[in-house]
């Protein structure tokens, strides 16, 4: 019975996991495995994807997968990669050649922007041959929707609730791709689950490059963002179409490719379909936050050029 239960067939990220319907992170996980193929070792921090995919004795993963703790998945991946470097150099038997293994991290924004940034920074600085992918759902979803360094201005979370004196998050979103690029990375990219082929192409391209790479993918969370599960892709697309989440490739510090946006939409169209922003349309001062977010989108359009 157990043999069948753990059979993965061709899928490397399998059904049966506990993620919510419409989960952007689960979709990301599936796309990651489709792009990397089986010759992959994935390091994952504590978080939604970790708990929804590996309740012992089950696992949704058809690739080698490791979770240690919340804030060290980049260093764990660096350690694995270094071990393979040693195995290949020393000709150790029983191990796949380092050049034939993809070393990948898949982590949420809390593990990336906040608690794991030391581990990530060190891994990038040291030049480990690791692709770090952040699924960005803009808050700590696993613990129940608390704000992270990725939460955008104005978003209501359980630690930045809208209230009589509050319009939700009052700190701007951290610019993580620039922080990654500042480490001298050859390849940094952003993506959106609304454009799966674009994301998979970027993952494949990144894996061709020796050294550290960083990809950040916008992955809506219906539960945390208070939107219907069916709207995940729509919202992910609107984030790009409004200019709030620019999708680009940055090579050696320069933007080399952007997803062009024709007739950029006003940010309200993106904001109004999510419960986390609804107070902005009702409360006094909400319009100022909306204006600020529009400015963010306008600056993105100008700076990144789409």
């Amino acid at each position, binding site marked *: 019975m157990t043999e069948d239960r753990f059979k993965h067939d061709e899928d490397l990220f399998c059904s049966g996991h506990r993620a919510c319907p419409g989960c952007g992170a689960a979709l990301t996980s599936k796309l990651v495995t489709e792009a990397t193929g089986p010759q992959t070792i994935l390091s994952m921090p504590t978080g939604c994807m970790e708990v929804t995919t590996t309740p*012992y004795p089950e696992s949704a993963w058809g690739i080698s*997968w*490791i979770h240690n703790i919340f804030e060290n998945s980049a260093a764990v991946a660096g350690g694995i990669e270094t071990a393979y470097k040693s195995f290949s150099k020393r000709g150790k038997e*029983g191990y796949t050649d380092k050049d034939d293994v993809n070393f990948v991290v898949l982590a949420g924004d809390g593990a990336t922007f906040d608690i794991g940034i030391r581990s990530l920074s060190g891994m990038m600085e040291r030049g480990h041959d690791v692709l770090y992918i952040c699924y960005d759902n803009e808050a700590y979803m696993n613990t129940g929707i608390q704000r992270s360094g990725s939460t955008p201005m104005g978003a209501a979370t359980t630690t930045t609730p809208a209230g009589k004196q509050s319009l939700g998050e009052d700190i701007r979103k951290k610019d993580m791709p620039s922080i990654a690029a500042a480490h001298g990375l050859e390849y940094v990219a952003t993506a959106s689950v609304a454009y799966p082929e674009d994301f998979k192409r970027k993952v494949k391209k990144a894996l061709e490059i020796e050294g550290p790479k960083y990809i950040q993918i916008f992955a809506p969370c219906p539960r945390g963002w208070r939107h219907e599960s069916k709207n995940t892709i729509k919202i992910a697309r609107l984030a790009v179409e409004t200019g709030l989440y620019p999708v680009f490739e940055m090579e050696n510090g320069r933007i080399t490719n952007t997803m062009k946006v024709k007739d950029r939409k006003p940010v309200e169209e993106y904001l109004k379909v999510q419960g986390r922003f609804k107070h902005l349309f009702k409360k006094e001062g909400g319009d100022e936050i909306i204006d600020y977010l529009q400015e963010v989108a306008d600056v993105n359009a100008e700076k990144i050029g789409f």
Partner: protein
Amino acid sequence: MAKMLTGYNAVAEAVKACNPDVIPAYPITPQTDIVERISEMVADGELTSEYVKVDSEFNAASTAIGASAAGARVFTATCSQGLKLMSEPLFSASGMRLPLVLAVANRSLSAPLSIWGDHTDTFAERDGGMIQFYAEDVQEAMDNIAIAYRVAEDNEISLPALSCLDGFILTHVQEGVEPFSEEELSGFLPQRDPIYTLDPSNPKTMGAYARPEHWTETRYTVHKAQLKAKDKIADAVEEFADIFGREYGLEHRGLIETYRAEDADVILVALGSICGTIRYIVDEYRKKGEKIGIVRPRVYRPFPVEELNKVLEDAEAIAVIEKDISLGYQGGLAIDIKSAMYSTGSRIPILNFIAGLAGRDVRKDNIRKMVEQTKEVRGKNPEDVGFENEERWDSLRTEILPGDDEL
């Protein structure tokens, strides 16, 4: 051939002989010299390990964990605040049954900040599933590295191991030692051969989370592995003696070492380098015809309960001299020894001397005072001594203490 080596050089030589695949390294006084010496070996091509210059002890432990999960032999070193920073990943390494070997150059924990030695750092990791070895001298610190690898990487054990040596007192003292080479060690320490690795040719999920129906059993197996490590240490120490001729408490399965304790009325229990000074005092008393002896645990976790009970059961008084204090109770070693003796029905009085914290010298005179105090309680029942009189702070400078109402 014997060589004069500092403790840090000796540990580095032992690491070289064990030839790890991956060595993540981060400096902290007084451990730094170990990883510095190793970096020189790598720089000169004497050692071909991957030397990873990490950003913190936290990521030294994390890198070691990743490499160990991949199947590599790993080494790192730390102490004090650095060990604290490693604590979270190290606890999870034991839960995931990942063998790692660390040298710990024991140093006190802040605050106040202190770079000098005591055992407050490793004692704070007591419950983490890491095997803990304590060396008395430089040779033992060196040999324990090889023994730690042999035990930690045994697939029936598969746990992290801390090979402790007193900061400065052992790391920075030169002693004559017999180094060993990789070739000489090969019969004793086989290549690591893990049952599971992350190799993509046979995908595995490592570090799945457990719900209440599985968590207890997972930790129980770690506990059983700790207990089984006693047998493995016994085997390793015996074989080590056969090959290298150096014996570490063979008659006590390598878990404890004794000195003139067999017929002793007063037994002093202590860890690490302080036992050098205590030996001197024991000889002094023996010359006067007084039966004093030493029991030195070489291993603190797993705790050598049976071995300790056996050698302590006939004493008339016991002094536990330790460089640790579990704030709000007593020293960790004394607590454990009292707990160990509970099942024997023993009514031997046990005094707990807190001594040598943060590198404060414990001189011969200090030891003499402890012996004299312990002699006074000989033959008494613990209730006659009284709990409040068990704990005694060596050379406490009462003149600089605030008054009770100012504490």
